[in-house]
């Protein structure tokens, strides 16, 4: 069995150069989008079907001291992925190494995964009816290479390796960084079943516009763990279509309000 992998995002070393954004586009052959500045140096404030990682900046001026925080965003590749639970057609799977992948042949672009991701990461291309997100560069990793973003990161803010070893590195680094940034914390170690991208943040998650406690919606747990296993005999029942529609509508509403909250820029 393959060991679980991890990318350690040490934001104390990140310089916000956006090299990861470009490396991601280059490796995955994603086209550039026409953008405008949205705020500060930000021209992208969410993922799109063709933008799988982007950089955000957060400014906090306190007691005459400036804090200029930066982090990259992409799929967290959760240990307990809500998107996978939500997918009605079984297009989303998880590898032993911890990667959460969308099988494009199976994907129908329904958007359930989009709505249920606590960070609003996957995005549906409405013309192709397919949903896309960061693959973790599984095609590189399975061939002995580092993910494109990690391999291009000059200041060494991104490190890739086995999860246990990376977590040790991350914890040691946290102890060091806490001396200068008392609010520093590891984000992702235990969230959503433990994420594959784990961050060292210099301030509370909310300052970065991140949910402090992302969760799998309980309604989704109900759908996945209770209803879906019986789908084989439930669906032929007359009421099945109505039940499905009831849940999906509820879920989308619940999750989209959540993902909006995750997109604000602390400044």
């Amino acid at each position, binding site marked *: 069995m393959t060991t679980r992998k991890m990318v350690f995002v040490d934001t104390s070393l990140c*310089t916000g150069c956006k090299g990861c954004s*470009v490396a991601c586009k280059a490796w995955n052959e994603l086209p550039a989008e026409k953008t405008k500045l949205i705020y500060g140096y930000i021209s992208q404030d969410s993922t799109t079907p063709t933008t799988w990682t982007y950089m955000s900046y957060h400014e906090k001026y306190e007691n005459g001291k400036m804090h200029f925080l930066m982090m990259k965003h992409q799929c967290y590749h959760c240990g307990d992925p809500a998107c996978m639970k939500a997918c009605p057609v079984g297009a989303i799977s998880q590898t032993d190494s911890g990667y959460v992948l969308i099988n494009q042949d199976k994907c129908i672009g329904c958007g359930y995964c989009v709505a249920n991701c606590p960070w609003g990461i996957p995005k549906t291309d409405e013309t192709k009816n397919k949903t896309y997100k960061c693959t973790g560069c599984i095609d590189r990793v399975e061939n002995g290479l580092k993910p494109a973003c990690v391999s291009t990161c000059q200041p060494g803010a991104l490190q890739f390796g086995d999860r246990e070893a990376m977590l040790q590195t991350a914890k040691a680094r946290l102890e060091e960084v806490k001396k200068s940034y008392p609010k520093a914390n590891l984000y992702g170690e235990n969230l959503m079943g433990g994420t594959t991208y784990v961050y060292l943040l210099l301030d509370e998650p909310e300052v970065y516009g991140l949910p402090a406690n992302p969760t799998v919606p309980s309604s989704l747990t109900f759908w996945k763990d209770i209803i879906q296993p019986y789908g084989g005999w439930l669906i032929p029942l007359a009421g099945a279509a109505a039940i499905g529609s009831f849940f999906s509508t509820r879920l989308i509403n619940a999750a989209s309000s959540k993902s909006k909250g995750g997109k604000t820029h602390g400044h």
Partner: protein
Amino acid sequence: MSPSFGRGAMTNSWQDMQNSEVFLIAGSNCAECHPIAWKWINRARLKGAKVIVVDPRFTRTASKADIFAQIRPGTDIAYLGAIIKYIIDNKLYDDYYVKTFTNALYKINKDFKFEDGMFSGFNSETKKYSYSTWSYQLDANNNPIKADSLDDPDCAFTKLKEHFSRYTFELAEQITGIPAAKIKEIAEVFCSRRPGNILYALGMTQHTTAVQGIRCYAIIQLLLGNMGKAGGGIQALRGEPNVQGSTDMANLNANLPGYIPYPTNAEKTLQHFAAKHGTAQYRPMVAILKAWFGQNATAANDYGYDWLPKNNPANMPTQTQFFGQMEKGQFKLLFNFGSNSTVSIPDRKIVARGLSKLDMLVVTDIFETETAQFWREPGMKPEDIQTEVIFLPAAFVYEKAGTMTNSSRLIQWKEAALKPLNESLPDLDIIDLIFKKIRELYAGSTDPKDNAILKANWDYGKHADPYKVLEEINGYNDNTGKLISSLAEYLNAPIGTVSTGCWIYAGVTGSGNLANQRNNSDPTGLGLNKDYAYAWPGNIRVLYNRASCDANGQPVDEKRKLIWWDAAQGVWTGYDGPDVVDKTKGPDTPEGKVAFKQTPEGVGRLFTASYTSGVPVAATVELPVPTRSAGMTVDGPLPEFYEPIESPTANILHPNVQNNPCAKIISTEFGSPEEYPHVLTTYGVVEHFCAGAITRNIPWLNEIMPEPFAEISKSLAKKIGVKEGDKVEVSSARGKLTVRAIVTDRLQPYKVNGKEVETIGMPWSWGFASLSPGPSTNNVTMAAIDPGAGTPEYKCCLVNIRRA
């Protein structure tokens, strides 16, 4: 740096930054603009190094600093002067180092004076200084007289102490806007941790006081004993990947390759040149003439010295100046390779005016830059422009072989990875084809002025081979008929028996292509990587490393030892190449004490005195020939603070001398602080490269940085009624442009001489063409240049701003 240390180059390397205990990063946003520097700085940070950032803006670099100070653009010398005073007052200097490796004890001419902002010897008509009083007291043998103690009233150290006695922390606060306590904190932290490293880039050089700002760095590092040591030094982070290479190959108009002074019309013969510049320059001059004229260069014809066109010092325009000369008709033809002046030159309307008066403009580039289509800019009248414009498509960096020399003086060979697209060609092929055609046209001419073309040694093959060019640069030995094997072989050969196209590169192909070495091993852990490519001179990775040893020639820092004297073998040896006069001369000999062998005194220069060392005579020369002349700072032997040409305030040090009296001013329109109350500073962003000719044509980069902007403080935004994202018009006496406003806490208003001042920050990489056109910030900047280096004062001018 050249007047201080003898060589105008970054002293250490990128990898060496991991060895520093503290960094002063002032005049560089390296986390953004030199990401590789940041990679190594991060390694030092992980080991506990402290980072101090001084910048007009809170940059991405500042976000990683332990100490940040926001400074008014163009006032660095004021706070650096206060740090120098702090070091001297508190006796924090390295006493042994200062007495041994600097000219601190050298007695200065009693007629030297500094009064009311002016040094002795100024000619107000030419706006130039005579160096006659900036000299040493000399003994009968032409050697400088040394004082017995640093308290001697005549010694350079005392001059330094007196000069900077005016620079208190409080005065520095009034000028720079940095609180005095913060300046003191910077001084304390930087002086308490050694080795300390200073990094700068265009933030320090793009001023009319550029050279003197760097001189402050030199003085600080010499006083603290940080020069010549792993983790120390002064790092000039170059603005482009191969700027060091192009400077080595003489992109400055007063140089020949290898920093040989370009002969002027006063040096009519080779003997005159030798008399003026000494044997130190005579040797490489003969070698380069032999490289350029080959068999045609003989002792009998002064190696073809007469064939070299000579400079006229009264008319030597730098790039910023020559567009004005073009407008007056001095130039008929401009070959423009890989430069986008229409975007990059300050007060840029002068560019189009100049180009419009040419007979022909040839632009070689990979994209059709703004310069290549200057006549298409909105507002131009193409029907009135007679200039014939020819565009030659160039190969991109990956489509051509050759070398690049990075800031660490590392000469790196690369092969072409791809074939050039369509008809595009490498620059070398283009120049080779043009030269061959020109020589064909001049064939048979007997006019002496055509000899330079007809007698040139030009044979790089049918299709020009860049390796043959590198071999010519390396040089040949007539006696062996082979390539020079090392720098030492060149230096020890009788003058006239060796050629080299750039003497500091001698040895690069001496035993195979050393620039192509790719062994990345680093057994010392100091980042020397001696078998990776080849660093000039002689593969030395840390310049002046003799200064890392004590009186016995042993390393003062065991953890970071570079070289040492091996008494048993009678030789200087070590992990790095020893930067010594003679490897066999021990620390008890005069030569063995020399740490700065490229200066005439052999020491680092706290006071840049005028001095020509040595004793006459080389065999082939009739006139007396001294050995070496000092590099000079044309605007003073000690740094003095002057206000930028456009400044929001009066010079409180000397109100009658507001600006650098030697500055060369090209722009003709100037604004007052009443009309233009704010200070503009310009810079690059990580997403775009220089004038944007390449990067604005790369969609992925346009996506992440789509447009230019003006960064302003929240208080200024409030004053002018602007919020984030609004359009603002920024104007100066010279022009205006409209961009998007970024409203941020990363800029704060500050007090200067009691008055509140705002800084506005704008990137400059946009122009009217490309996939991502945008207005050019150089509409408003000012063309005024440093008298020594010729760099324009892009970093400060006065502007106004309003909601558009």
